């Protein structure tokens, strides 16, 4: 069967303007968008640029906008899309484009790094006998495990309208990483972490658009983590009015 990929292309060495180009590709049940892109790169236009690595939805390389929403190209089956119309592929939003579907991901990783996403030196030893059950209730245990599933693909970062409107907002993935730090069972000082999570640009900057939950390919539910941190912050008297 045939499908058309309509790709938003950009080559900084040729022009400062992006342009659209269409390619016809073959597909069978099971063909994913990433392999359709390989067809184009290998057989039609070697200059097409996109990132890839694991092709199994665990490395987070190949996130792009597919028909207007961020998705992993390796996990998106062509048969789930309407092939009567062109499949529209664009680079992620909220980051500069390097070339074609490749974006400069530094703002994303800088945001994660900014919240000190590691255990402090005085953390509780991982050798100690502890279970998630004893440290948190069911909802938090569930959300904590989801927070460890984040593959940093930047889908939520791309499709967050709040980030677009307010670049000071750290974005859903960073808030999820904040959650992971506050609720880490070895974390030495959850209250200090919670205080950081409510600073300007933190969890209270979210306006509860649900895009992040919808586009997350690992079902990490970043907005749920944000709401849970907001609730905890209010209970601890740390609520901020900042939006």
């Amino acid at each position, binding site marked *: 069967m045939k499908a058309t990929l309509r790709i938003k292309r950009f*080559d*900084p*060495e*040729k022009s400062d303007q992006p342009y659209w180009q269409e390619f016809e590709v073959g597909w069978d049940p*099971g063909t994913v968008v990433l392999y359709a892109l*390989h067809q184009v*790169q*290998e*057989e039609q*236009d*070697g*200059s097409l*640029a*996109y*990132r*890839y*690595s*694991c*092709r*199994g*939805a*665990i*490395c*987070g*390389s190949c996130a792009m906008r597919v028909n207007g929403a961020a998705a992993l190209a390796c*996990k998106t*089956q062509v048969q789930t899309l309407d092939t009567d119309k062109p499949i529209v592929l664009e680079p992620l939003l909220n980051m500069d484009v*390097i*070339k*074609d579907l*490749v974006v400069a*991901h530094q703002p994303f*990783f800088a945001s*994660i*790094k900014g919240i*000190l*996403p*590691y*255990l402090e030196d005085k*953390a509780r*030893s*991982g*050798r*100690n*006998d*502890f*279970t*998630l*059950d*004893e440290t948190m209730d069911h909802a938090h245990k569930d959300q*904590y*495990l989801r927070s*460890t*599933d984040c*593959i*940093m693909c930047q889908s939520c970062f791309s499709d967050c309208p709040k980030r677009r409107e307010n670049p000071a907002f750290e974005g859903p993935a960073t808030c999820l990483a904040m959650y992971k730090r506050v609720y*880490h069972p*070895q974390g030495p000082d959850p209250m200090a972490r919670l205080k950081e999570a409510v600073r300007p640009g933190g969890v209270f900057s979210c306006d509860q658009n649900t895009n992040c939950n919808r586009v997350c390919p690992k079902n990490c539910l970043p907005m749920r983590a944000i709401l849970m941190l907001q609730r905890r912050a209010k209970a601890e008297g740390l609520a901020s009015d900042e939006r």
Partner: protein
Amino acid sequence: MKQNDEMLTHDVLIVGSGLAGMAAAVEAHNAGADVALLSKVHPVRSHSGAAQGGINAAIRPDDDWHDHRFDTIKGSAYLADQDAVTVLCREAPDAIWWMADLGTPFTRTAEGLLAQRPFGGQRRDRTCYAADKTGHNLLHTLWEQVQKRDLKVYEEFFVTRLVPGNGAWPSVVALDVVRGELRQFAAPVIVLATGGASRVFGQSTNALINTGDGVALAWRAGLAVEDMEFFQTHPTGLLSGILMTEGCRGEGAYLVNAKGERFMQRYAPEFMELAPRDQVARAIQIEIDEGRGFEGGYVHLDLRHLGEEKIKSRLPQVREIALYFGGVDMVKEPVPVRPTVHYTMGGVACNLECETASPGILAAGECACVSVHGANRLGGNSLLETIVFGRRAGRSAAARKGSGKPPSPAALKDEAGRIRALFDRPSGERPAAVRRDMEQVMRTRFGLFKEGAAMREGLATILKLRERAAGVSVQDKGGVFNHDLVHVLQLESLLDVAWMCAEASIPRLESRGCHYRTDAPHMDNEHWLKHTMMRRSKSGEMRINYKPVTIEDIQPKAEVKY
């Protein structure tokens, strides 16, 4: 291709930023070295993150690292060096505690102890895990530590050449993929941690980036490469190639043929589905080849009897993978699986301190061959190797920093000329066309079942493919993010690896671990209990000699039975 003449230097430069590379970086930094990582992808994109099942360590009261060592050596078909396996197994508990202290969310028992599951070829429940995302969780934990130390990471730099020191520091020339310029990096110590090469078979559980670059770079630089005939085939890949973890069978999954038989009964009556990978993979292929597989060439991995709750808590990711990449819900249906190439046991030859024979060049992880896996790796030992030997490489590197002098910049000029010549080639074949033909040869001639005449024919084809590869052209003439150029360079790596695998496989007239020959189906300890060592001669020829296996107390048996 632009070149940037400013040479960048550090105390320790690590090529590759998966688990072995980042473990080395963290330890070298802890020991006071100025360390930088250089990788063709961002660190969290590394293939280490795809490891599912777990990481072995004898930490239960009823276990002992000597038993882990025995199982590893037996599983290796006695080809592993016993002193290296001692290091791997003795340091395993410390590797686990190190990662646990850094915050890896290992799955725990109701009492809060680290949970351990059974894995193939082992007599205890020895495999620690973080659900079925063990590699992902370890990788992200170490990436956090790299952030904590603010280590320099040269992301999306593809190394095109490794230059041994010859009295000065070793160096690499690398393509800055984003900027489209070549640059030279030098350090008193360079650690290769570039991962495996199973992409050479095409049908592989490996990430598309696992093109064996480090092994090829080392070989081209004249370093010794060891045991390249041993590629492990994982018993259970989805038809799309993506891995279904051994943890499935560890949790109790059955392998069932089209007649409804749990056929492992015939091959390994005691260990059944949990025999070592080489034996299970061959058993599945025999079932398929003898007509007891399903139409299309596969068997079933059946988990239904485990129940929804266990599948959801212990194997959540593989359930999703089976759903998205195999189209089946393992709670309700059996999963179609077939043997799929998975792991490179061979690699850059190095000693227990991760040193190669070239001063200042170290190797660790899947690209290295210490050798702890011999002819067949046990599940759960590869993540372990990355942490144990990655850390050792980091400490070893930090201890060597500082001596010698920077190298000459001549290599940068040479490489710039070589890459320019790639661009100037008249339009020729696409690299993917040559790559696909190579994959076909490797699958059919150097896969689960090898045979002399077929392999010699395969070698002849590989040599012709190398000639064809010398004519492939770079279609993208630009500088910025030119993956077309990267594909041409990766094809060079892949064809070096394919050549090594062929040349190493043909003379080994026996069957051992993952190297199985229908024309020599038995292990031959008298003649072949030795490592294959390959080197490139100055004129570019393949030189092979052999090195004895280090045997300490465990005497090799005539066959490996489970």
